[in-house]
Structure formats: C-alpha cells, structure tokens
C-alpha cells in the first residue's frame, strides 16, 4: 500500500493545568494537580464536590473579532475546542484564516482550505442547565415537578433562544473550528465517549495517509463540569467518594484503595500533516504517527470488559499497523481513570499485549487531570508527544500504590529521563464498547 507518512506538528490543549501544551507539560513535571472543589456551580448536593476545571479564559482571545458574536452560541465543550484549535495552529506555526484575521501571522495561508480537514471528537453535550431550567420551570409545578407539555408547546419553549439547539449539537465543535480556521476538507465528528479523540486522530491519520487532505486538525473536547455532567457520572456510579479534604490525592489510577474518577473537562487538538507537506513548509516535527488500531468490547455496553480483550485488540492492531513488536514499546500511556473495574480491565489488556515484560515505563494523567470524556485521549496524546520530544517520563500523580503486578512503572517523585523511541496510548469508552490506540514515534527523518 502506498501511503503517505503523517507527522504531528502542533498540540493545542486546554486542561485543568492551564491553556496550552506548555502549561500542561510544566504542570505535570512540577506535579501540580488540576483537581479541586467545583467552582462552576454549587455542587453541595452531589456526593463529591471535586472536579477538574480549566482555568478562566476569554473567548475573544481565540477567535477573530468578526466571530465574537458567535461565541454566544457555544457550549463549554465547543469553547474548549475553539480554544484548542488556535493553540494548536499557533504551536504548529500554521497560518490559517484565523491567525491572519487576528494579526498573529502574516503571509500566505499554510495550507489550501480545500486540503485542510478536521476530525474532532465530542461528547454528549449537556444543555446549560440554568438556561434550560429557567425555561422549563415556566411550564411545570415547582412542588411536584409535574410538567405541562401543552403549556410548554404554547408558551414555555419561547423562553429559549431560536438557536438554542445549535449550542449542543456535537458536530458544532467541528463546525465552529472549521469556520474559524476555514478548513473545508473532510470533516468528521466522532462521538464514542472517552475513545473519541483516539478514533478521530486515527481517522485523520488515515485521511492524510491516503491523500484526501494535507493537514488535519484533530482530537476532541468535552466538559463534564456542569450539574448534569457530574450527576450522570454519579448516577452511573463512577465518581470517587470523599477526598474533599485532599483533592490532589483523590483520584488514584490503578490503586484499589480508592474507587472512582474525578469528573473534569479538557480539550486537545493536534495538527497532523503529510510529512512531505510539513517539510516543505519548514514545520517543526514533534512526532510521527505510525500506527492506529481499534477494537470492540462485547461483554457489556455499560460495564468494563474484565478480560480486556477488546482493548487489547485495539493496541495489537495499532502495533501491527506500526510494524512494531510489544517489546519495542518504550512508553505506555494508560487511560487509568481511577475506577477500579475499568483500571483492572485495562491492566488485563496491557498484560495481553505486553506479555511477560516488566516495569514498562508508563504514564497515567487522570490522577492530576480528572476524566473529561471526549477530550481526555487527545490530552494524553499531547502528553506523549511532549514526553517523546523531551525524552522524559513525566510523573503520574497518585500512582505510588498503583498495583500492576510489576508490569508498568510510573514515575512518581518527579520526571525521569527516558530515551523514548516509540510510545503507545490507549483510550476506551466508559459507557459503550469502543477501544482505540495510537502509536507515536520520535521523528528521525
């Protein structure tokens, strides 16, 4: 098969450690935690008040002046994607319609709009509950909660702005990003929960490899930092109990002593390019994408697959695609959310893949960043890109007691120098059956 090589030239992230990939990397190295009491709303009625929120930003800093009005119809998930998109183009020094309009660059566009694609993973976007409740309460009984659909149809619904629906369509992350940066090539929105970013980046990798686009902006974003987002995870039984007194240690990947995730929010978008295209424009190449694989769990659509077969299939497919043996993996980026059942299933998958290897250098970022959903995988990958770039294994928060039967070795006290040639990252949907993995390699010409 005659496929083009695909490289990563930029990473844009918005995480609880700040905006931009430097804030992420510096925060990880300095062992900062992005977890704290939820500030976005009064979480007093929830079992846990912990969240992982992206620090304040102003949308005006991430769109052209002419697009500021449109930021009013962006759910938080969409905002995060738009923020990440400009961060990623800046990081890649990619000149787009947006960077030109913002006077951040001058000269010609780096890529023809019809060869510039977008593949952005999105979650189940929660409607702004204050806005929606404000409308719904006009048509319901405040004591019993009984709702009058006739009254709603006649009067209540007009409390909502005409464009209300468009704030919450999952493809609006991609739509706003493609409008702002003028990306007209293939554009897709993958909605597979926590696996979304990996599937989206994998698809962008294939799109560029077969020549359907030269540059793709890809990854995902999601915010669970709203009452419904956290409530949903609480009802399903995934939120860690307690920890309010010491937020930084609450979420403990692969550590059976605490069970549960911290709900969060984040976005991550990568710039993927055809290698020759990147070289021609003189781009700095951060890493090469050499393998992608997906696999499906079939034991349940709402519980972890205890034997890890589906997740292992994804990693095995990605390694085969990369032409790598398990023994050649220098770094494993786990998805470890801190939910015991899922962590155990993931460990089973890594055991299947890595066999009798011992102390494989590994990272687990959710202890510091929480679990955001569709954006989490892209943030992991941005972390992997930085690890490759710096030849450094970043510390993984709260993994001191991680129990992996000697298979994985996390850095704890601080960063560890590590020669990394190839790294593999896994992500999987918590609700649902999808698993996906990507293999990145240091670019050496």
């Amino acid at each position: 098969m005659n496929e083009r090589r695909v490289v990563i030239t930029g990473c844009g992230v918005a995480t609880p450690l700040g905006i931009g990939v430097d804030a992420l990397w510096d925060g990880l190295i300095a062992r900062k935690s992005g977890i704290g009491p939820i500030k976005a709303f009064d979480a007093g009625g929830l079992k846990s008040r912990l969240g992982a929120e992206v620090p304040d930003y102003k949308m005006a800093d991430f769109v052209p002046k002419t697009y500021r009005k449109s930021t009013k119809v962006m759910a938080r998930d969409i905002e995060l994607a738009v923020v990440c998109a400009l961060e990623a183009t800046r990081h890649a020094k990619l000149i787009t319609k947006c960077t030109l309009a913002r006077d951040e660059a001058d000269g010609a566009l780096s890529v023809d709009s019809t060869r510039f694609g977008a593949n952005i993973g999105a979650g189940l976007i929660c409607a702004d509950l204050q806005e929606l409740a404000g409308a719904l309460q006009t048509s319901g009984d405040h004591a019993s909660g009984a709702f009058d659909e006739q009254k709603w149809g006649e009067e209540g619904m007009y409390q909502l702005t005409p464009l209300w629906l468009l704030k919450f369509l999952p493809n609006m992350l991609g739509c706003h990003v493609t409008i702002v940066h003028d990306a007209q090539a293939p554009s897709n929105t993958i909605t597979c929960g926590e696996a979304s970013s990996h599937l989206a980046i994998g698809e962008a990798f294939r799109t560029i490899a077969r020549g359907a686009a030269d540059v793709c902006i890809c990854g995902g974003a999601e915010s669970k930092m709203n009452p419904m987002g956290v409530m949903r995870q609480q009802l399903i039984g995934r939120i860690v109990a307690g920890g309010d007194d010491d937020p930084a240690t609450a979420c403990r990947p692969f550590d059976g002593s605490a069970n549960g995730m911290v709900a969060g929010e984040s976005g991550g978008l990568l710039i993927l390019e055809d290698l020759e295209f990147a070289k021609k424009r003189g781009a700095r190449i951060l890493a090469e994408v050499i393998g992608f694989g997906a696999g499906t769990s079939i034991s349940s659509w709402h519980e972890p697959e205890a034997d890890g077969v589906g997740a292992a299939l994804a990693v095995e497919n990605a390694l085969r695609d990369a032409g790598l043996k398990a023994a050649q993996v220098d770094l494993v980026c786990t998805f470890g959310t801190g939910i015991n059942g899922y962590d155990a299933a993931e460990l089973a998958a890594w055991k299947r893949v890595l066999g009798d290897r011992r102390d494989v250098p590994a990272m687990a970022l959710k202890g510091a960043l929480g679990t955001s959903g569709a954006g989490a995988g892209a943030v992991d990958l941005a972390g992997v890109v930085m690890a490759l770039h710096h030849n450094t294994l970043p510390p993984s928060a709260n993994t001191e007691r991680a129990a992996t039967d000697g298979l994985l070795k996390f850095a704890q006290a601080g960063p560890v120098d590590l020669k990394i040639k190839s790294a593999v990252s896994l992500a999987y949907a918590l609700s649902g059956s999808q698993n996906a993995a990507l293999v990145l390699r240091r670019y050496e010409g």
Partner: protein
Amino acid sequence: MSRRVVITGMGWITPLGCDIETVWQRLQAGKTGMAPTTNFDASKFPTTFSSEVKDDFDLAAIIGAEAAQRHATASLNSRFALGAATLAWRSAGFDRQAPTDMSRVGIYLGGGEGPLDFEPFAAAACCGWDSEQRSLNTVKWAQVASERLDRMKELEQEPNLAASHIACHLKVRGPSYNTLTACAASTQAIGEAMCILRRGDADVMISGGTHSMIHPLGVTGFNRLTALSTRNDEYASASRPFDRTRDGFVLGEGAAMVILEDLEHAQARGATILAEVAGYGSTADAFRITDIHESGRGAIAAMRLAIEDAGISTSDIDYINAHGTGTEENDKIETLAIRTLFQEGGRKAPPVSSVKSMLGHLIAAAGATELITCVLAIRDGVLPPTMNYEHPDPNCDLDYVPNAPRKADVCIALSNSFGFGGQNDTLVVRKFATEPRP
C-alpha cells in the same frame, strides 16, 4: 488498486415499515409516514405531527425474546439500531454462517444521542427552581435529580450506545465508531466504513444510522429554529421537497443499516451482492453554523470528490437521491449545486428525488435510508418519486420525479446528505459488475 466494497445486506426500521420490500413498495406508491405525534403530547407545539415508527416494530420478533430482554434498557435509538442491524446481518446470510473472524468485522454508525429522559429531567428543573433568586438552586436540583433520574436511561443517551448494543448482540470485535455530523451522519459513516474496508482494516462493516429526536426537547429545538413544517392540518402532505410552498422538514425517526463487505470476502463466501459502494466525498462548508454557503460550494465539492473517488464522470450518473429536506434553503442550494456541477460537465442533471417527502427526515439515520433506496432503485430500475410536488419553484428547476415513480435504468446513483453547520457528504453507489472499476 484498493479493495472494492460491496453491499451484501440491508435492513431498516422506518415510519413506513420494518422490512425492505414493504417499505420499498410503499415508497414507490407514494405513501406517507406522517401522523399526529404520539411519543409525547405535541398538541400545542407549533408542529403537532411527525413521522414516527409505528406499532409494527417488534424488536423481540427480530432479535428474539431472550436478546430483547437482555437489551431491555436500550433507548429507542438503540432499539431501532438493534432491529435494523440484525435484519441487515440476516439479509447478508451471517445468521446462518457467521464470519469466521469477528475481529475483522466492524461497526461504523451515524447514531444520534438517545432521547433525554424528559419527565424526571423537567421535574428536577422545576423543583430546583428558586423563584426568588430567579435561578436554579443546583443543590436542591441535585437532590431531586438523584432521586428521580434513572442511571441506565442516562447512560443510554450517549451517542455510541447503539453501536455498543449491536457489538454485544452480534459479537463484533473489529473497529467500532459512531459519528454524529447531524443530518449527514449515516452517509458519512458509510463513507468512512468504505475507507476502512478499502484499506483492509476490516473485511465486513455494519454501517448506517439510527435516530429519534421526536421528543419534547428535540421538537422544541427544531421548532425554535423554524426548521419544521407547521402544516398541521395537512400533515400527510406536509413534507414538500422542492415545491414552492415548502415550509420545512418533517421530523422522522428510525434506523437503516447496510452490511458493507470487501468484494473478495463476499465472493469467497458466495454472498449475494446487492450493489457496489464506489465513491465517497466529504467536505465542510466552513461558512456559518446557521446557513449553507449560498453558492453550494461544499455540496458541489462533496459530490465532485465522490465522483472522482468512484473513477467516473458526471455523465455516468443516472439518478440522484437528494438530501431534499423541504426547507427553503436546502432545496434551493442543493438544486443550485447539482445544476452547477452538471453544467461544468456539460450535461443536464439526471432525475433527482427526495424520499423525505414520504419518510420524513430521520436526521442521523436519513442518509442510510436513502442509500438503501438507491440500491433498490438500481435493482428494480425504478426511481422513487418526490411526493407533494405541486407548485414549481423557479429556484428549483430540476427533474424531481414528481408524484409518481418512474421506470429508468439506473446503473450509478449518487446520494447526498448535508448537515447543520455545513457538513456535506456524498456517496456513489453502482450496479455490481464483476469487471474492475474503470
């Protein structure tokens, strides 16, 4: 040359019925799926009707009582998807002889989000409302919400759940995806599934879409956008694609699935080949979230890319199954895009029709129903009509196969889907012939 991809199975759950042949007969006969909405009390909504799946949908009869029990908590979306996928699987012959390596079988759906669990959701919003502060007291809300909301119904709203139910039911281990590019989703899903098969990352893909937005907030959202027809007194003929008096689309629901297969894999097992998926084009308008680009540039580009991908030219196309929603803007610009594309090729556009005039708009699932329609048009040499076409619109000047089916040899058909926000996807489907593509 990359591998060829063929369709070897089809299934759908639609407002006009739940088996391929019945629905196809009804589409040729110009039947309507529209009726007053029953999923909730829409009697005072601006739009009181829709195109719902009817009582003839019996999931247990399709997947078996035991399986239906296992999937008892599935949302309407997931139920439609399970039904359609199982019918497609059966039509491909996989119920008799399953594929030997299930890790080479994948899923690519354009599945919508599951319907919101409206009653308890609205109750929590009302009970949590603080009239004095004029805001929601989230603490009070959380108390009510945690008592009244159901964990499985919350889980079922995730858009990837339909694909996950199918995976568990049919034991599918290969690559699995869900896309949600609004009204373009299932066309995009089938296009991307074709790419996966061409590259050799799977041998079989279950692909298509499923969606129901016929619930209070779904209809609210579209009514506020003024996207829906409000022809409440003439609901049966309310969906009027390309007609001058069109006033919006009619919301439908359902699922449609195809089994896509690598040609050699299909031939090796002696499968009946229904058609070949020969081309796929995908673009973004990158214009506005509310409007289609007035020149139709994204739609033109998607059609052109699909045609190039299939290695054919515009003059080879015998029939276009339009997105044709019945909104003022879509039908005008889609017409312009088709006309422009064919003028470039120096020929008149082929016949164009929209089955949304009968089925309504199945949103994420629409594209897959329309691809199946194209396969049947190719098989039987019949173009389905655009119903309710009475008043010519100077902006819509193509041959829309008005009001009656038409006999026509169809070798190659093109199917368009365009989504809110400027997502454009086009598929080229052709009659299967053993000689390689030109």
